[in-house]
């Protein structure tokens, strides 16, 4: 299997106005930097982005908020982005806030052919409004639906031509789950290696979930909160 494309521009071929995208990452950690730049350059608009966070004002998904390409965000936490908060409070941006665990599980479910599942998260809160509630083991649970996307954009550490991916440290986060849930999943990697170089026992995302892969460049990997201790 050879799923390699030349660059981010080729990798996003087929994105259209109004589509739904998933984007991996937690804060700025493990985000698909190259794909986000290419999406900005493509000027695709009215998009729905499913991503745990919304970047910061001038990096990550903040770049697509600046250009107002995003119609709707589906996230669990957006506290690091002032422009986001401004657009949300003014009503320019639709926002669906989802408990982080439900977001992760809904993406996995979308990729796994599980259309719906019950979770205790959000019971008794506005998150559960309009949703079915049912008791299991004496405890109320909310029915949550799977999420899928027209494109999923993920970022891995290494990947091979067949689309097998491995992630580094906490840059893993939502990436493997969103990779499962994209109709077309685009993986950008820091290092593209030949098939056979990654140990089959330690693949995080099997290639079956990836349709296109490319080696990204100029990774900035910005740190949001540099915290250190003194020696």
């Amino acid at each position: 299997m050879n799923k390699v494309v030349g660059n981010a521009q080729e990798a996003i071929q087929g994105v259209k106005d109004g589509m739904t995208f998933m984007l991996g990452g937690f804060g700025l950690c493990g985000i698909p930097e190259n794909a986000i730049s290419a999406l900005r350059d493509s000027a695709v608009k009215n998009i729905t982005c499913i991503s745990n966070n919304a970047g910061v004002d001038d990096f990550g998904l903040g770049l697509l908020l600046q250009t107002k390409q995003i119609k709707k965000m589906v996230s669990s936490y957006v506290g690091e982005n002032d422009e986001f908060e401004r657009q949300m409070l003014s009503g320019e941006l639709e926002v669906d806030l989802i408990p982080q665990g439900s977001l992760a599980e809904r993406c996995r479910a979308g990729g796994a052919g599980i259309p719906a599942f019950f979770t205790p998260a959000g019971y008794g809160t506005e998150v559960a409004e309009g949703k079915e509630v049912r008791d299991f083991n004496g405890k109320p649970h909310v029915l949550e639906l799977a999420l899928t996307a027209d494109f999923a954009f993920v970022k891995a550490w290494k990947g091979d031509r067949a689309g097998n991916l491995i992630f580094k440290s906490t840059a893993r986060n939502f990436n493997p789950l969103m990779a499962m849930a994209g109709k077309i999943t685009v993986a950008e990697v820091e290092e593209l290696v030949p098939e056979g170089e990654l140990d089959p026992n330690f693949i995080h995302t099997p290639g079956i979930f990836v349709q296109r892969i490319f080696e990204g460049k100029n990774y900035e990997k910005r740190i949001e909160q540099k915290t250190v201790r003194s020696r």
Partner: protein
Amino acid sequence: MLGKKEIAQRIAQELQNGWYVNLGIGIPTLVANFVPAGITVEFQSENGILGMGPFPFDGEEDADLINAGKQTVTLQAGASIFDSATSFAMIRGQHVQLTVLGAMEVAENGDIANWKIPGRMVKGMGGAMDLVASAENIIVAMMHTNKKGESKLLKQCSLPLTGVGCVTKVVTNLAVMEIKDGAFHLLERAPGVSVDEIKAATEGSLIVDGDIPEMTFD
């Protein structure tokens, strides 16, 4: 009256050997600095770490290794990394023995509100709703009153809820309280703080049963 550090220090006394613990952003994060000698706990960070260690030395920080507060961290020997679905499987499946988190309001029935001020603050709930809906042992770490001096321990939460009837204990700058049977039960006073001061700062039902000892710190 306790500072933030002392609140964390007091909460650390609740830790038991072998526990897995999830610490929220703010005061809860500080709890990791006060693990009592002789016990081993592992800290879970919901972005995908078990066995989180201290902050890195300057120059050794790794953009790919952060905690749920987006701070650079390190790993301890025996740590593991996993994806967000597995992380919340641990949380939802009650494999984490203790959750410590902050709050804007706590009600006498154990309700908690900490994610939204309608029309003003809309940062999102992050993992808090999953944590409070799942954990069997939830300690809230917060100031007893807000900046205007109003009690944060209420008969009923006024803000949108994060979870219902879930908080088991509250540790504030003034007191340690257990929540049961629809009331705050005063367990300990901060050094130099009187029961009356705690009563005055608590809007919700406060049960004071017998002599209330002062907290002790080693």
